[in-house]
């Protein structure tokens, strides 16, 4: 009887409102899966709005979203995009502006995030979670080796420590770093490494700089470091692969996204949860651009016919209240971080997240508008925010992983990358 009433209620509600169906495209990362689960709370507060999820792996999502928005396909009402796409698409007028109201409290947002997602002061995407990169290491191994980790290590120091703690016979490798080709895979890390060696992608005349000394030094160092003290098969490792290795206790050190911290300190998935410590991403010639800045953000395509509902959803998913909701429903260790000051002021969050300080410091220190030692014409720390960068980053990533696998020399790999970069820039009509 009760059941029938319930059914009627559901059915009647369905008839009363013509349902607005919001199609949300997102990445299959842990934080987004949580958002999907908690979507029912949003639906409850906003009767008549139904959420339909399209959850995809990062690369696939990028393809779907880009083809959709570029051909004005209109499949999605809310898209998950990054700090790379937002400024390019915002400038083209493909995204609807997000107008914060008083309740949204825009001043609570970390300035680095707000800046990276705005064009001319207008916000085109709201950050869902933000990240920088930092060094994560096994304090027990470093201690056993009789060494000490500086708060701001240099790459030379990192190499010395890696040499000491490397113990392949016991299945522990000195350092794990990304090697899988892709502009968002190995090149994200490598760009920060090159930045810290004083390199850049393009000079002020948009000439690619890949055969310059900083690039050669940085890549030679990287290949050498991973060959000596890295796990076998590094050229196929990206974030998820290394996360699995780290959680199994096979990595001594790891420089990667700050978001990894919440996974490797979670005893449910990590065997070394209590032995992890953090330091800032290593520097060498300069500290500029040594750690990256990234945000996964939610945006509304300008072509959407349900802009109001979509904006409402975005404001819900990126609000302070949402962070609290995750804290209550899932646990404070799983809240999306890196977007709001209030998160880092929350006592309950700080209690479970020992990485909070290091993460906040890393995010604040990154500046996408000034991330290289020589002046650069582009915006972005671990990428150049121009449409051509994607192809250049992919081509270079392929060569770097070939160099890492020992298939070509570092010099040859950089030379081929330089050629690829020049081709793309010529094709796009930069030099006329």
């Amino acid at each position, binding site marked *: 009887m009760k059941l029938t009433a319930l059914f009627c209620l559901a059915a009647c509600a369905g008839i009363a409102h013509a349902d607005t169906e919001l199609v949300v495209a997102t990445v299959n990362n842990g934080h987004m899966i949580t958002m999907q689960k908690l979507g029912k709370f949003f639906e409850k507060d906003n009767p008549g709005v139904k959420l339909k999820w399209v959850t995809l792996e990062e*690369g696939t999502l990028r*393809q779907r979203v*880009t*083809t959709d928005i*570029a*051909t004005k396909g209109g499949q999605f009402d809310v898209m998950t995009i990054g700090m790379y796409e937002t400024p*390019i698409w915002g400038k*083209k007028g493909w995204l609807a502006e997000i107008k914060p109201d008083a309740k949204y409290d825009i001043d609570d947002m970390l300035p680095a995030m707000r800046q990276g997602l705005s064009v001319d002061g207008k916000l085109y995407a709201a950050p869902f979670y933000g990240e920088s990169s930092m060094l994560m290491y096994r304090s027990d191994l470093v201690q056993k080796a009789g060494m000490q980790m500086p708060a701001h290590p240099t790459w030379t120091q990192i190499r010395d420590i890696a040499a000491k703690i490397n113990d392949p016979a016991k*299945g522990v490798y000195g350092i794990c770093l990304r090697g*899988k*080709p*892709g502009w968002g895979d190995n090149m994200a890390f490598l760009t920060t490494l090159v930045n810290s060696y004083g390199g850049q992608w393009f000079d002020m005349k948009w000439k690619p700089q890949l055969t310059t000394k900083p690039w050669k030094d940085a890549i030679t160092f990287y290949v050498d470091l991973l060959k000596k003290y890295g*796990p*076998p*098969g590094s*050229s*196929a490792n990206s974030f998820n692969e290394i996360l699995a*290795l780290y959680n199994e206790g*096979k990595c001594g050190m790891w420089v990667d996204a700050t978001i990894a911290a919440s996974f490797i300190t979670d005893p449910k998935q990590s065997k070394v949860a209590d032995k992890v410590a953090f330091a800032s991403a290593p520097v060498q010639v300069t500290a500029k651009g040594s750690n990256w800045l990234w945000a996964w953000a939610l945006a509304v395509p300008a072509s959407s016919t349900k802009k109001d509902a979509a904006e409402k959803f975005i404001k819900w998913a990126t609000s302070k209240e949402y962070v609290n909701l995750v804290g209550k429903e899932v646990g404070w260790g799983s809240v999306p971080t890196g977007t709001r000051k209030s998160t880092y002021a929350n006592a309950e969050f700080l209690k479970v997240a020992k990485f909070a300080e290091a993460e906040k410091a890393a995010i604040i220190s990154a500046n996408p508008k000034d991330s290289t030692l020589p002046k650069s014409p582009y915006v972005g720390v671990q990428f150049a925010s121009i*449409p*051509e960068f*994607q*192809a250049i980053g*992919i081509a270079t990533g*392929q*060569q770097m*992983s*070939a160099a*890492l*696998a020992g*298939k*070509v020399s570092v010099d040859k*790999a950089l030379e*081929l990358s330089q*050629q*690829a970069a020049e*081709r793309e820039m010529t*094709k*796009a009509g930069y030099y006329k």
Partner: protein
Amino acid sequence: MKKLTARILLTPAVGSLFLWMIVPLVMSIYFSVIRYNLMSPGEEEFIGLMNYHFFVTDPGFWPAVLNTFILIGAVIGITLVLGIALALLVNDKFPGQSLVRILLISPFFVMPAVNALLWKHMMMNPIYGVLAHVWHFFGLQPVNWLESFPLLSVIIMVSWQWLPFACLIFITSLQSMDREQLEAARMDGANYVQQFRYMYLPHLSRSVAVVIMIEMIFLLSVFAEIFTTTGGGPGFESTNIAFMIYVQGLMNFDVGVASAGGLFAVILANIASIFLIRIIGKNLEK
């Protein structure tokens, strides 16, 4: 008069088939002569054959063409040899024959992407893969398959997938062999090699032709295995034409160059099929 009615009645079907074929082709040709990057649309302009130029002068182009042929050749070779051997092995009656045959054929029903993941993680991973354990067992340093032998790894995966297909065709073919002739040959004192050379092989020739033809068509477009395991790398060592077009179209978002590449693949497939029909068509006519 009757003929005319028949033709009129056929028109809608033929017409729609024609459109279905011609529209994508014409669009590809159109895209291949304009500058069209999805990351910066609205800037399309006619650029003639520039896209073809960029595709053919891509540093990955020749390695990709070569890899495509190596991949096809190696997989066809492996599946033919092992397929015939396995088919002969399970041809004679033995207990549990039907079960063994089902097991033999099952890899063909595994999806390509699953096949790739299976090999990447369960078999070839240098740290926890089955092969690494085998190597360790013999006191050897495990081979890092996907990094050291990327193309060979892909060939192994694709062969594993296509071997059952070849096997199935050969088993069926062997079923139809004349037992009495074989018996007679044996009575006349022909040993196994002679039987194989003069009885089995000629009988199998038609199915060999079928296997080569069908595999050739499907292997030109091998993609999932490369995409999931090596990503075409390291460098260009496991990039084939299909993967290269994918990189141009969906990773670089350069529709123009990708269309040029697609048309190149069409031409390549046509050249291959001309040779194929010459060689195999004759065989089938017999």
